[in-house]
């Protein structure tokens, strides 16, 4: 039950109480301590996005590598390097994200793949999921989306 507040201050104190509750909820969603060492590959043609996504992952102590095009992503996976998580954009130079995802899945790679892209249309979402990503996220990648996935990968 919400606390009873003096009527004169009711609006601002209620706002503070709600904001505090939201902040606490957000904290619960975004705090995580990983038990296992997780690895991730970030595939994004944009340097700003790639740097930020890698840094976000590293802030949760996930070891990351980054490549800036689909062809290099496929080549890295084909060379035998394994990742717990692949974060891939839809539109990439050289080899696009849809085709790169298909080729990675065709190699028998079953790790979690997140399609993180600036595209937001339903048809784009369906296309990326059909290509083989497990989750479609509209940019920017944020802790609220990432942390539940890390928890799942960590077996929490």
């Amino acid at each position, binding site marked *: 039950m919400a606390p009873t507040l003096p009527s004169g201050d009711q609006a601002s104190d209620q706002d503070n109480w709600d904001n505090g509750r939201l902040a606490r909820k957000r904290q619960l969603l975004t705090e995580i301590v990983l038990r296992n060492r997780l690895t991730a590959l970030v595939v*994004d*043609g*944009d*340097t*700003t*996005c790639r*740097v*930020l996504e890698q*840094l*976000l992952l590293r*802030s949760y102590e996930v070891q990351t590598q980054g490549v800036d095009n689909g062809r290099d992503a496929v080549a890295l996976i084909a060379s035998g390097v394994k990742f717990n998580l692949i974060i891939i*954009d*839809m*539109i990439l130079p050289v080899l696009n994200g849809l085709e790169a995802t298909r080729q990675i899945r065709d190699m028998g790679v079953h790790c979690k793949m997140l399609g993180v*892209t*600036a*595209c*937001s249309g339903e048809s784009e979402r369906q296309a990326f999921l059909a290509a083989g990503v497990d989750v479609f996220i509209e*940019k*920017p990648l*944020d*802790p609220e989306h990432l942390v539940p996935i890390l928890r799942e990968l960590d077996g929490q």
Partner: protein
Amino acid sequence: MDGYGMQNQIACIRRSLFDQGYLDEQFIQLEELQDDANPNFVQEIVTLFYTDSTRLIQNIELTLNSRPINFSKLDDYMHQFKGSSSSIGAKKVTSECAVFRQYCAAGNAEACIRNFQHIKQEHAILRKKLEFYFQMMGQAAVAQTR
């Protein structure tokens, strides 16, 4: 201006960037990634964004000036621009990019050209505001060491 006054002014500048819709919550994510090991992280990421996006703007401009316009190429550039803008919390720039992509999907050259002017304007305005904000932060940091 004393240290306290300066901190107050910086807080006001920062709040106005959010209140006026130039920045969204993603910028707070950047601030949360900043720590003692990376004390200038936010400024560095914003600088990186502006270096890359300036090149993107040039590419978009070239594509808009070519005939016939390659809308597919245009959409790819704008997809990148929208993605990187959203990643630093550039709210107005991101919104305008989304509008541009709709015009692009419709093959509406005139609307694309018109909208692109808005994108460049918002891009430039935000740059000036952030440069001023970081400048104030730098001055405050110097004042604190005295």
